[in-house]
């Protein structure tokens, strides 16, 4: 019943099969792209809507149906919104907090990560266990007593409560991530450094840290964005106008001009732009920074 296929027939069948296969993978790829584009549209819509409203003339933003493309583009919303509050002061305060707190977190987290990953000493595992437990400590529990401590120290009314704690080991997550990454570097690095006469301090600073680009950049971005965006901390501590940060400035806007959605969106957009730039520039490192640290659970 079955005769052997001739060479031509076999080739034809193979081509047809491959064709069908290619068709299927092409269909799959098409479907995947369709879903991806749909997801991207949904995810980008709020940002798009912020931009559209920020560029709509006063009076036109509250129209129904909504304006999907602003006409004309009201660039003057930005200077108008900026004029309504001392935004340069807020910007300065936000920058001071984000930069100084990030620096402290990166330095002290990488120190702790170095000790956990590269040195052997009694009590190491105990402290690392405490670090892991801190990952799950709800921050709310320490908010009130910390406020009381800072009040006793006379530091409320300054930027210090939002900076000082991060010079003490930053966040448990940062320590953890540094430790995971440092463990992936070969121990020969430390040994070679020791033979060359370098102490542990030199090994940490000029051997290990320069090898840690991805995780360093990842944490720098995470911390900066977190401090820049932080709302509850500033809300509690920064009660005078001269020490407020951008989130509080934008919030104040909401209280004063509840109906001016275009000005609100303009100010929200302005405080978002630096974050967008940082995330877009840093995203190349990001995936590597997380992926190489064994957060994959293995």
């Amino acid at each position, binding site marked *: 019943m079955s005769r052997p296929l001739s060479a031509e027939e076999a080739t034809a069948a193979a081509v047809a099969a491959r064709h069908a296969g290619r068709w299927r993978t092409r269909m799959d790829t098409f479907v995947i792209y369709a879903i991806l584009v749909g997801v991207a549209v949904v995810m980008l819509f709020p940002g798009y809507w912020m931009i559209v409203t920020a560029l709509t003339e006063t009076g036109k933003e509250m129209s129904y149906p909504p304006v999907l493309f602003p006409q004309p583009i009201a660039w003057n919303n930005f200077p108008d919104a900026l004029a309504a509050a001392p935004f340069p002061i807020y910007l300065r305060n936000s920058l001071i907090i984000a930069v100084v707190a990030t620096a402290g977190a990166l330095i002290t987290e990488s*120190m702790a990560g170095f000790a956990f990953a590269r040195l052997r000493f009694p009590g190491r595992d105990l402290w690392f266990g405490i670090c892991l437990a801190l990952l799950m400590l709800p921050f709310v529990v320490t908010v009130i007593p910390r406020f009381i401590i800072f009040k006793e120290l006379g530091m409320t009314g300054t930027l210090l409560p939002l900076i000082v704690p991060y010079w003490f080991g930053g966040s448990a997550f940062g320590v953890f991530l540094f430790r995971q990454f440092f463990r992936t570097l070969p121990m020969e690095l430390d040994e070679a450094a020791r033979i060359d006469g370098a102490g542990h301090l030199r090994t940490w600073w000029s051997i290990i840290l320069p090898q840690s680009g991805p995780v360093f950049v990842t944490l720098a971005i995470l911390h900066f964005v977190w401090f820049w965006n932080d709302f509850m901390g500033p809300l509690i501590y920064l009660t005078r106008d001269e020490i407020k940060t951008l989130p509080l400035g934008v919030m104040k806007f909401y209280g004063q001009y509840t109906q001016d959605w275009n000005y609100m969106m303009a100010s929200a957009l302005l405080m978002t732009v630096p974050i967008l730039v940082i995330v877009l520039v840093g995203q190349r490192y990001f995936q590597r920074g997380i992926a190489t640290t064994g957060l994959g659970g293995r």
Partner: protein
Amino acid sequence: MTTTGSPGRSSLRRREALWGYFFLAPFIAGVLIWQAFPLLLSLYHSFTDYEVLTPPKWVGLRNYERMIGDQLFWTSLANTIIYTVMSVAIFMVFALGGALLLNAKVRGIRIFRVVTYLPSQLPIVASAFIFLWIFEPNFGVANYLLSLIGIEPQRWLFDPVLAKPTLAIMGIWGIGTGIIIFLAGLQGVPESLYDAAKVDGANATRQFLHVTLPMISPVLLFNLIIAIIGSFQVFDLAYLMTKGGPGTETLFYVLYIFRNAFELFKMGYASALAWVFFLVVLVLTFLNFRLSRRWVHYEVDVR
């Protein structure tokens, strides 16, 4: 170094220990000053009447007794649990789904990863106001888009029934960090396991259920615990968008603590509330770990 024998080695070890504690010093000081001490201080305050301006006055268990009869305590606890269930479910489903999709090996996938991640990094004040505007009952674009498919306009955050779900739905735009962690997990699954499954004739669904899920279960647990703890501490959105309303529908636990502490200056009562919160989260996390023994699969070669 080898000829000095054991005394040299032990002094070397002592030096390494000293350096270990040198590098750990900021971290240890931080744990003591900014975690342990505040925790104990707040435990003490929870047994006092403390209104900041006058020194704390010992009242024993009165704050805790008061809590039992405090209707707002129970309301805020219930609101928080309901919100947590909704937002954790949304987070886990969408973050895992998103990670599976973004793990596809197609060209340009990186752009889509960035696009999905970006919204999660928006300042909370910005996204709160964006969504306040999108869900605005009279001129908001959400109602407009829904009207195109024939759905009646809703009052969203001003509707007692919809307020909590609306806040939870906003979580979809915050799944970026969860996706990154899931992606790291997915990329850690060895390709050889899928090949073996394919040889055994497993289709995509079975591969997902019997290879992917068990292999990423530690990451599932991690994301689940972080999501629960995060949702339990919801504050910014309620403070900025709803102020706890309508009525007390979005009066969440941390908002209630905040009001007692920083608006009414009842630091003693707020500390007691915070400690109960701490214990609830502790129990939840413990239960999670206990239950996880049944479904989390750890590789044997854990280092």
